[in-house]
């Protein structure tokens, strides 16, 4: 590949530009009118304005993005995460115009985008899946299926992602109450109001396995990540490796992920998401056919550049790693610094970064598109940057992250820094055995909302 159009913005667009530069691949950035002075716009070799600020008219405007790719002579398109990254039609359009879509095929995106179908395929392949239903056809079906599964249950959108159209129900009354809202949200977000039910596992942990697969049948996993620290189904902190996991469970998770990837003939970089219950049973939830926000923790521990590998695989190169070559070293933690306090009812507030001091020194990595003087636009997601810390073991990584959080200064916009600092001091978090309930419980008990 010679020239890649980066169909995204923010830190992930920069991340892809960095990988391309290191591979001597030219980059074409796209930007909305709100991102004219954004770093991804200025750092790429070329930049094309593809529309006004709202994402539907710019970062989601397939025609303008493809026209920019063709006009600029790009031979590949990297969608990043979010936006068009899981859009099967976009992948197909890229292919139709002779552009390499850096991700799996549109068929994979279609299959894995239908969460219910993906589960069925995995179950058939022998991967344990989370108990749940097919698409709910009626209120009667809803109530009966929930009774069979047993409360609490999770209502989820078939085409969902990022927690949208997702609702927890403790009983029949609550379930009936949230049914319509969930469907409306799913329709608004994904143009598909089909929802299904899933058993809600109490005290479960969200653990995912990173995969890399080439076009020639070779698949490796690059360890697991702990992603249980979530607020409103949005991850706020991730770790690699998952703490408090036995070597035996780790091996079983890796094997199941490989099994699942092989079952669908997966290609490129992807992630198998599992829920792990307190007894050590695990269940497939979904497969993310793209780069994950939290990929840096894996990179630091395994010494692998996942974005460079993803591009190499998309270009048709064979995998450069065997499973035996991939061994973890130390521990890494990522904090997603958002332009938003973590508190009930909080919302991101746009503003200008009036002062920025970026942490440095050993073990610290900062993936971010902000700079002193940057104006945070109100149109996109609230991620300001990802602070990642590495240490020889979890204890050292925690200490490194604590001091990096202490060093990081962002003035002018509200941030999640106070939350992250407080969580890092929390004894239960430090013990490493927290589940997806952690933040909800913690917010209920805590006064820290800053």
């Amino acid at each position, binding site marked *: 590949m010679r020239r890649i159009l980066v169909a995204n913005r923010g830190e992930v667009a920069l991340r892809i530009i960095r990988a391309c530069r290191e591979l001597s691949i030219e980059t074409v950035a796209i930007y909305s009118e709100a991102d004219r002075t954004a770093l991804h716009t200025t750092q790429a070799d*070329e930049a094309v*304005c593809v529309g006004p600020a709202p994402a539907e008219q710019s970062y989601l405007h397939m*025609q303008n993005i493809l*026209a920019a790719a063709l*006009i600029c002579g790009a031979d590949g398109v990297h969608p990043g995460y979010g936006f068009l990254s899981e859009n099967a039609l976009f992948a197909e359009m890229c292919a139709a115009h002779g552009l390499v879509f850096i991700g799996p095929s549109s068929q994979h995106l279609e299959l894995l985008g239908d969460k219910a179908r993906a589960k069925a395929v995995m179950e058939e392949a022998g991967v344990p899946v989370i108990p749940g239903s097919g698409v709910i056809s009626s209120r009667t079906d809803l109530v009966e299926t929930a009774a069979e599964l047993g409360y609490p249950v999770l209502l989820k959108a078939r085409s969902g992602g990022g927690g949208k159209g997702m609702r927890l129900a403790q009983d029949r009354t609550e379930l009936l109450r949230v049914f319509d809202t969930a469907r409306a949200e799913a329709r608004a977000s994904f143009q598909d109001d089909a929802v299904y039910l899933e058993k809600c596992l109490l005290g479960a942990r969200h653990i995912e396995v990173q995969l890399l697969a080439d076009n020639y049948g070779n698949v490796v996993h690059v360890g697991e990540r702990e992603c249980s620290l979530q607020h409103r189904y949005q991850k706020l902190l991730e770790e690699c490796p998952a703490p408090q996991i036995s070597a035996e469970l780790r091996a079983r998770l890796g094997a199941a992920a490989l099994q699942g990837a092989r079952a669908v003939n997966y290609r490129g970089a992807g992630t198998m998401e599992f829920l792990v219950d307190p007894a050590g049973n695990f269940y497939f939830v979904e497969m993310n056919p793209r780069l994950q926000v939290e990929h840096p923790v894996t990179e630091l521990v395994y010494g692998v550049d996942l974005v460079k590998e993803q591009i190499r695989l998309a270009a048709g190169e064979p995998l450069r790693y065997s499973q035996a070559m991939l061994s973890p070293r130390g521990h890494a933690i990522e904090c997603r610094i958002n332009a938003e306090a973590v508190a009930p009812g909080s919302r991101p507030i746009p503003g200008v970064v009036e002062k920025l001091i970026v942490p440095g020194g050993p073990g610290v990595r900062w993936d971010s598109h902000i700079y002193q003087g940057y104006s945070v636009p109100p149109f996109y997601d609230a991620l300001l940057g990802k602070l990642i810390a590495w240490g020889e073991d979890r204890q050292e990584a925690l200490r490194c992250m604590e001091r990096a959080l202490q060093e990081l200064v962002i003035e002018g916009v509200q941030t999640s820094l106070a939350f992250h600092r407080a969580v890092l001091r929390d004894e239960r978090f430090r013990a490493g055995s927290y589940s997806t309930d952690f933040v909800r419980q913690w917010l209920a008990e805590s006064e820290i909302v800053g």
Partner: protein
Amino acid sequence: MDFEQIKALIQLVDSSGITEFELEGGDLRLRIRKASTPAQPPAAVPPGAQLEPVAAPMVGTFYRSPAPDAPPFVQEGDAVSPGQVLCVIEAMKMMNEIEAELSGVVRQILVADGQPVEYGQVLMLIERRA
């Protein structure tokens, strides 16, 4: 020539006294026109005249005429009225006609035929007339 060089040329022409600029590949063909000696003298822009930009509503390739051998939709100095086609932008093999939204006179065409344009790029300036 890459996109950046083209943009630079456009800006250069835009900020200079030059009103037309052509360039061809192969054995090179260059053509530069200044406003003081136009092929067909446009009506002088009266001081205080209101110039309205026509911006590209999409990313694509700018064409001044419906086909390679056809005459251009408009020339500098032409009077135009709302709904009149000014140019086309080709995007993904689709020809998108760009229409005038006001009555006036085409004062300046800022993009050369066959050049790529990005969203919001100013294609021409029209002097508003009642």
